[in-house]
């Protein structure tokens, strides 16, 4: 079923058992993002140590795609340097824009290539990107706050 390419096991798994959910009171920047069309919301804290991402924590409510996406993203980005994170975010955004034509680069995106199927469902791309856009915003703010 076409739907299975959207709802991969690893995605539903992250949805049921989200990683890094629950806000860490220590952060360099906090942002709140909303998916205006469905009302999904996320609050995301990022803590930088120099140029390195020491922690990402988040809270929010939303569909499996948005929740699993921010969960996997946190796994992926924590411990990375900002410039490395940039490359990963860019790669993920490109995958989302690919309209089902790309399988994603597992070297860069690791487990997050599971979202490749989302790009075939234009209505869900925003869900998958919600956490990532929040991260991008938070990273900029954290650097400005420095």
């Amino acid at each position, binding site marked *: 079923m076409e739907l299975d390419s959207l709802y991969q096991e690893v995605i539903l798994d992250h949805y049921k058992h989200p990683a890094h959910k629950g806000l860490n009171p220590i952060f360099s920047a906090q942002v709140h993002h909303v998916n205006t069309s*469905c009302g999904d919301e996320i609050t995301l804290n990022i803590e930088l140590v120099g140029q390195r991402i020491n922690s990402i924590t988040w809270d929010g409510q939303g569909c499996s*795609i948005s929740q699993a996406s921010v969960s996997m993203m946190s796994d992926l980005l924590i411990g990375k340097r900002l410039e490395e994170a940039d490359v990963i975010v860019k790669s993920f955004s490109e995958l989302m824009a690919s309209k089902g034509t790309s399988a994603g680069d597992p070297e860069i995106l690791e487990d997050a290539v599971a979202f490749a199927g989302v790009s075939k469902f234009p209505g869900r791309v925003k869900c998958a990107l919600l956490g990532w856009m929040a991260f991008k915003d938070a990273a900029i703010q954290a650097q400005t706050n420095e």
Partner: protein
Amino acid sequence: MSFSVPEIRKDFPIFSRSVSDGKKLVYLDSGATSQKPASVIEAESDFYRFHNAAAHRGAHQLAQEATDLYENARAEVASFIGAPGGPDEVIFTKNATESLNLLAYAMGNAQPGNRFALSAGDRIVVTEMEHHANLVPWQELTRRTGAQLAWFGLTDEGRLDLSDINSVITTNTKVVALTHQSNVLGTINPLAAIVARAHEVGAVVILDACQSVPHMPVAAADLDVDFLVFSGHKALGPTGVGVLWGRKELLEELPPFLFGGSMIKTVTMTSATWADVPAKFEAGVPNMAQAVGLAAALKYLTNLGMDSVHSHEVALTGYLLNKLNAIETIKIVGPTTAQSRGGSISFIVEDIHPHDLGQFLDSQGVAVRTGHHCAWPLARRLGIPASTRASIYIYNDENDCDVLVDSIVQGQKYFGRF
């Protein structure tokens, strides 16, 4: 004319297509927009094919034909909603949202002495179940005028809490704007007490009839409201056309909103005076083909009979509510019986986010809406960030409801895999 869904469905070209790889289309999103019968599509096409010209402007036969068609459409709307003052009370807008903004901006244009002029100390009353279109324009008007916004809260079953009606509609209230039927809860609001209190304090009552005019007999005069708005596209009509009805003497006092051609009496470089109602509120070349299409839609509904339309929907709503109520893991948002409620049925399915459920239903050919349904404060009040809404109309039947409920059950299995 007897009410037969199979016969009705034949009039709607969209049901001859399938969705999601060959599945039958189970369209349960008429609360967002309705499907269109062939007669509406053809009325619009025929306007372009045979009569297209600028109404009220040209000196030629086509312009006269276009004018007649456009004005006949106005008359059709007036009779459909029982406008006591006839066609002059009907104004064509692009959608209900524009109709409501028209009222808010026009009131903002009122100068001291005009009954619509608002200032600090005045109050505008809405409800907690309003669609954004009947909330945000009033927020903005209070920002511009210093007036205050107040609202009726809700009971936990999603009915208006009218226990403190006199302290909500205070003597300094100028406007009471509320929905006739909630687009989320399906609740049909009782109007008599609100209208009586509003008129007692000299306020005008504005009825958002987007979800009632297409679904039940609505007679403006009987409801005793002062203004009423709805959208054509939710009533079998084309996109790009809405209606504002208002009492003639109020429309005459209300200042204009959009400025330009056809709404003026005289113009110099520094000043202008206004045409009579309804032209005063229709600036520019109008959405003629869409008004004509809307008239065809209302004719279609009139032929079915609005009483029959309503009975059909009440019956089907009861049927679907029963089926949903029977499943423990489904919680209906809003009244759980068909009593004083229409066919917008929102619900939550345990452990499945509405967006995921909507996606699954789509894979089964079932079209619903998910999210806050443009009524975010209502969602907050009910403590539900989002819900799934099935909304029914004349072309739906019990089979559609069965497919919906079966698909929900399948969806529970699909997402319960782990």
